[in-house]
Structure formats: structure tokens, C-alpha cells
């Protein structure tokens, strides 16, 4: 079976673990070998979170090598920079351009990278960038939808992960996990599929 490695990063509270969990459950249901390895740091809201997902091989070490990930998913602009090193040369990088400012940045005591800087670092390793703006996140019945499901919709629409995990299977996983809110989740996933991509600034 073809192997496929995914490196996910973001900030605790953004639902990074949930994206990885949904991919893992979908792979499990389809009988695709999967290893899901979260690193939560001190498990807090606001801290750096990463997950390494390795699909397609049952006897696999949990850690992805530098330059080994077929796909990177980042839920936060600055944290994306911690994942660039792990992207395969020429791999795909889905960036949700959301700012989660650390306190020092809020107080004007530390710099925060602009989108072009992050984009250029990804491009420097030959990465194909798919960038979404958090400003395009739609509302459902007046409330903003969950951005992690939105991002997942875009991942499934844009990247080669669909060769292994078709959108339909993901829809089933999500519906089974949250049976009471299928309508909003279906709406969010579909909005993600159709999410506009940003151009290099």
C-alpha cells in the first residue's frame, strides 16, 4: 500500500487533534493502517500542538523525518513555520491563515511573521501552498462554523489525500461522531471544499 504522511500543527484549542482524529477514524474504518501521534506539550489552550499521522504502513515509527511529510496542515500562521522543515520537497501545504497572538506580540514586545514570509519559506522547499483566510469562515444560523471542519473540507478538496480518503468517507465519519449536528457539519465541510484560496500577497 502507498504510504502517506501528514504533519499537523496549530495552537491548543483550535481543534488540530480533532482533524487528526477524524482522519484516523476514517482510515480505521477503511482498513488503512494508521499511526496517530499527538504531541500536546502541556495540553493547554494556547500552547503549540502537533500531530504526526502516518497512513499506509502498519509497522511504522511514530515520528516523521524532516522532509518526509506528503502533506502539512497548519491551523495558525506562525506555527506553520515549525512544520515547514517536515514537508517533503514538492509536498502540499494547507495553511489556514489565522493569527493567534502570543502575549508578547499583543503587547508589542515581539514580532509576528507576515503571510508572505511564511509562504516564501514553504515555497523555498518546493511546497505547493493552499492558503485559506480566516475572514472567509462562513456563519451558520448566525454563528461562525468550526474552523477545523472547514479546513478539513478544503484539505479534502485540494490535496492528494483524497486518493486515499475520499470526501464521502469523511462525511460519514463526521456524521457518526456528531450525530446531533450533522447539518451544520455538512454545511461546514462543503464550505471548506469550496473555500476560496488566497494568492501570494
Amino acid at each position, binding site marked *: 500500500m502507498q504510504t502517506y504522511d501528514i504533519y499537523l500543527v496549530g495552537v491548543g484549542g483550535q481543534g488540530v487533534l480533532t482533524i487528526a482524529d477524524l482522519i484516523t477514524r476514517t482510515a480505521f474504518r477503511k482498513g488503512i493502517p494508521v499511526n496517530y501521534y499527538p504531541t500536546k*506539550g502541556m495540553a*493547554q*489552550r494556547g500552547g503549540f500542538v502537533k500531530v504526526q499521522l502516518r497512513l499506509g504502513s*502498519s509497522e511504522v*515509527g511514530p515520528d516523521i523525518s*524532516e522532509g518526509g511529510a506528503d502533506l502539512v496542515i497548519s491551523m495558525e500562521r*506562525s506555527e506553520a513555520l515549525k512544520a515547514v522543515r517536515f514537508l517533503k520537497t514538492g509536498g502540499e501545504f494547507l495553511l489556514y491563515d489565522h493569527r493567534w497572538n502570543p502575549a508578547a506580540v499583543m503587547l508589542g514586545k515581539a514580532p509576528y*511573521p507576515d503571510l508572505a514570509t511564511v509562504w516564501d*519559506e514553504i515555497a523555498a522547499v518546493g511546497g505547493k501552498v493552499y492558503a485559506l483566510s480566516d475572514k472567509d469562515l462562513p456563519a451558520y444560523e448566525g454563528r461562525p462554523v468550526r474552523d477545523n471542519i472547514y479546513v478539513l473540507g478544503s484539505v479534502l478538496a485540494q490535496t492528494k489525500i483524497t486518493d486515499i480518503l475520499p470526501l464521502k468517507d469523511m462525511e460519514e465519519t463526521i456524521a457518526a461522531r456528531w450525530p446531533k449536528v450533522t447539518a451544520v457539519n455538512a454545511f461546514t465541510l462543503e464550505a471548506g471544499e469550496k473555500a476560496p484560496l488566497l494568492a501570494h500577497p
Partner: protein
Amino acid sequence: MEKMLLSGNEAVAYGALAAGVKTVAGYPGTPSTEMIESLLKMDLPGTNVEWSTNEKVAFEVAAGGALLGYPTMCTMKMTGVNVAYDSLISIAYSGCTGALVIYVVDDPGVSAGMAEQDTRGFALISDLPVLEPSTLQEAYDMTKYAFKLAKAIQGPVFLRSVTSLSQSHGVVEVEPRVLPETGHPLMERNMDKYTKAGAKICMDQHQDLLNRLTKAGEIIAADGINQLHLGAADGAGVIAVGVANAYLKEACQKLAAAGVDVSQLSTLALHNTLPYDDGDIEKLLQHCSRILVAEELEPFTENRVILDAYKLGKKVEILGKNDGTYARINYYNAETLIKGLCKLLAVPVPESLAKRDIQPEAHCAARPITVCAGCPHRGTYIAMEKAIKKLGLKKSDVFITGDIGCTILGTTPPFEVLWTEVAMGASIPLAQGVVYAGTEHPVLASIGDSTFFHAGMPGLVNALQHNINLTLVIMDNYWTAMTGMQINANTMQSEQIHGWHALDLEQVLKGLGVPDLKLADPYDTEDMAAKLADSMQYEGVSVVLARRECAIQARRRKVTYTPVKLIAEKCVKCKRCITISGCPALQFEDGVMKLDPTQCNGCGICTDLCKPGALVKEG
């Protein structure tokens, strides 16, 4: 057999159930916590599962069952072995009739912020076998095997995992639980075995221990736990231990794809390090002229390979940590193996697998962590700062020892009031030492509730007996929080399970005869600061018990506080609330203060800091 999606820790739990485990005891510690946590969620009549007061207690509880002939297990993180070791080595020498398995998770790469120590060093000193699974399925299978081996040798066995394996989730095939045996406990009163009364008894036990280790080696060899594959004669060989085996496979696939011939490699896949597999190591040494040893952390196996080569009188070049091929720190991945294999084969790392010269992290915003929104002990740290100020002192005047757990967040911005993070319970005796050293100003120690019961009490008893002039702040939040909210002796009675009893920390302190004991609510920083300043001036042992439930747990339990409101027009953008509290619910974006109502729990600490009254309690 059922296929389940399990973590490494859960796989070990299911393995223990399939081995008919009678008792499982442990102390929470990342990366090992989920093993007991998963068992506590199950209904397991006939099996005793508990969070013990500390790792030594957990080991002793497990050992007691094994003395009576039953399969038992204890679990801890790597630094927990330091705590358990006194009894562990004694029982290692005594042996036990039931299977006693010690599950420890080491943390190469330090994801959990403790000493990057290698448990195998402890196993070497206590002459105990060590099993090292390399995959999730092996974590399950080898747990079962550990019980079998322990029973066969009549002594404890270490099951050693690492963070990456224990925290990974994947598909594991598990068998149904085997119900623990009941009745007919073995009442063996054997002074020669279970006491250390006299030199003869002790030396006989030492010899018996060595015999058990030899026997373990014979059983492991007979069961084919390690796999030797011989490739080209006089060629290159690799010895990989535990998870390094999975990375060896991946590295070989990548190298082969990049045109490097790895087909002639000899390999020895080790799933146990101790006793050393001298038989297979010698065969490999006889067969190869160059050998790479890949094991995370300390070069225990590698050093043995060098010794075995010396004993054989065979000149073999050995690559590993002694020659600088590998470092003794950090975790491995396929890249680590690729680097070692290329050096072993004397070929350059293929262009497609070579490290790229990039530094993307250089642009990354630092993201230090702090206590959660609503954490009561944000108030404790602020009160400490206020009390220091009240006494006309500076933070640099007042030595405050820290302990282990969430309390370490007092070492980092914005508080930076704690000076040390050493070991469970170390804060109080360290503070006593600081007092003895003769500082001019008050000395404080700070510790959490679970840590206080774990190893803090002996230090307090010592300070009380010797009438030391120090102030202890117990940062009570009712839970073992940092590891994910486990129940401890101090957790409220309504949250205790399985008929467990809550101990009242205040009564314990009163019972110890603490001469100056004050209760404080850390949400009331002004009141707590006044009490603390008073205690700091007390001559003798003073204790401030700062009590308030962990905000995360309080929210889960539907404890609610009056929400905080931000009156935008009153905000003067001084940002004092953020600079002093560091509360993640407070944000300053695009020149405007914001209060995130999904994070704010209404603790109200920020309302005390806001001079213009822009942050107020609603209603």
C-alpha cells in the same frame, strides 16, 4: 481477536487484562498516564486499579499482590522509577511468586519536561529483564509476554516504552480479558526471601537474582523474542533496539528507493535489552566487520557489543554513541537511521534524503505557555508578587522554591516568581537548605496538593521538627491537574470513585501541628497577599493553604462564577491586565482590548488589576 484503535498506553492496559492482572497501581505522569486512566474507565470486577499516593506506594501495592502469587502491575513515568526504586530493588532481590510487571515510559526528546533519563540504567543495577516493544501491536503482545516471563523467573520484569510509542494510536488486535484468579492466595512466610536479615540472606538473594536474570535470557532466547538476520559475510550489520527497529525498516526502504544497496545488511532486532542477548550479538560480531548500534538515549547495548567484541578477540568497527555517530540525547526517526546507515556503508547520504539548509523557525513567534484562563493559582502568583512588594522587597530578594506539576508555570512570564523545579516534594527541604544558607529575607516554598501528598509531607515534617523559618504555599486545586485531572487523596469526596475516601488537607496540616496555618482564596489576591505577607514575617514554619478548584475541572463540573464584563469606553489601554495576569482570555488586537467569553470563567482576578474599572463583574 478484536481489532481496536488504541494508544500504546491502552494497548498495555489491554495486554495486562488479557494476562489476568489482579492489581494495577501507579502515579500519573506524562507519557504513561493513559494506561491506568483507560482501566479506571472500565468496569473490572476482580481487578484492583488505583492511582496511588506516589510511585513507591504504587510499586509496593503491586508487589504485595505478587508476593501472594498473583499477576500485578505498576506504572509510572521515567522519573517515577527514582521514587519507587528503594522498594523496587529490594523486591528484585527477594523475587516474588506472582508475575510483577513494572511499566515505565521513557521520554527521549523530552516532550514532558523532566530529566531525559533511561530506565534501563535502573534495570542494570537491579538485574531485572527489560522488554522493549517497537510497535503498538508489540506493546500489547509484549505486555502479555512480560507477565509470562515474570512468572517463569519468579521475579519482576520491566516493560519499557517511550513517549512516541505510548502516545501513538493505531490498530491493535486484542483478546478478551482473562478474569483474575480468586481464592487460594499463597501465604508464603519466608524470612530468607522476604527480609534482608543478615549477610547470608542478602548474598543468597543476590545470587538468586543473578540466576533469575540468566534464566530470563534463556527463556527469551528460546522464545525467539529477538530476530537475527545474517546478510553478506564480513559485511555491515545493524543492531536496533525497540522503536529504532521501525525506523530501520523505513530508512532501508528510503535508501533502497534512492539507489543505495541495503540488501546485504545483517540485522539484529532487539526487543529486550536486558539480559543482554550475548548469543545473538556474538553471532553478529563473528559475521560482520562493521556494526551500527541504534538505540535511543544511553549506549547500554552498544557498550555491551564493544565488550563482547573484546571478549571474542574480534576486530569489529562499532558505530554508535562512543564514536560520535549518534548523540545520547533526543529521539530517533528514519533520518537518524539513514545517517547511521550511510556512514556504516561508507556512502554519501543521497541528495534526495539529505538535510536541507533551511531555518523557517527563525521567523516564528515564541509561544510560551502560562496557566489556563481562570486558573486559581494565577491569583497565587500575583499574591506572591504583591506580598513581596508589601514587605518592601523585590522579587530578586525572595527565594521561592517551586515543585512539580502545574505549579512550575510560576517560573515563566508573566510571573517569574519561582526559582527552582527539582523533583516531587523537593520544594520544602530545598527551602530549608536556603534558610540554613542564611539569606536575609523570607524564604518560601510552593507545592501543589497532589505533589504535597506524593512526597511533600516528609519535607514539611522535617521543617516542623527543626523549627525552620519558612513559609509554605500549598497551591491546592483538588486535582492532579498537569497530567490531565486525575483523582488524588485531596480530591473532593463527591468525585472519588470505587468507594475511595477524600482526605482533608487542612485537617492534615492541623494534625501536623503547623504553628501558623492560614487558608486563603487565591481569587481574592489582595486578601491572600495580606495573609502571605503576614506569614512571611512569622518566625517558624508558616503554611498558607491557597484553595480553589482547577478552572478546567470546575467548568466540567458546572461550577459557575459571575462573568467578567469589559466596558470598552472605560479601557485606557494600559494593558496592565495582560502584563500582570497573562490571562489567555484577555487579548489586545488591532489597538483594542478584547475579552474572550468562551475562555473567561469569571475568576475576576483581572478586575482587581484594572484601575479605570473597565473590567468588572457583571451584576
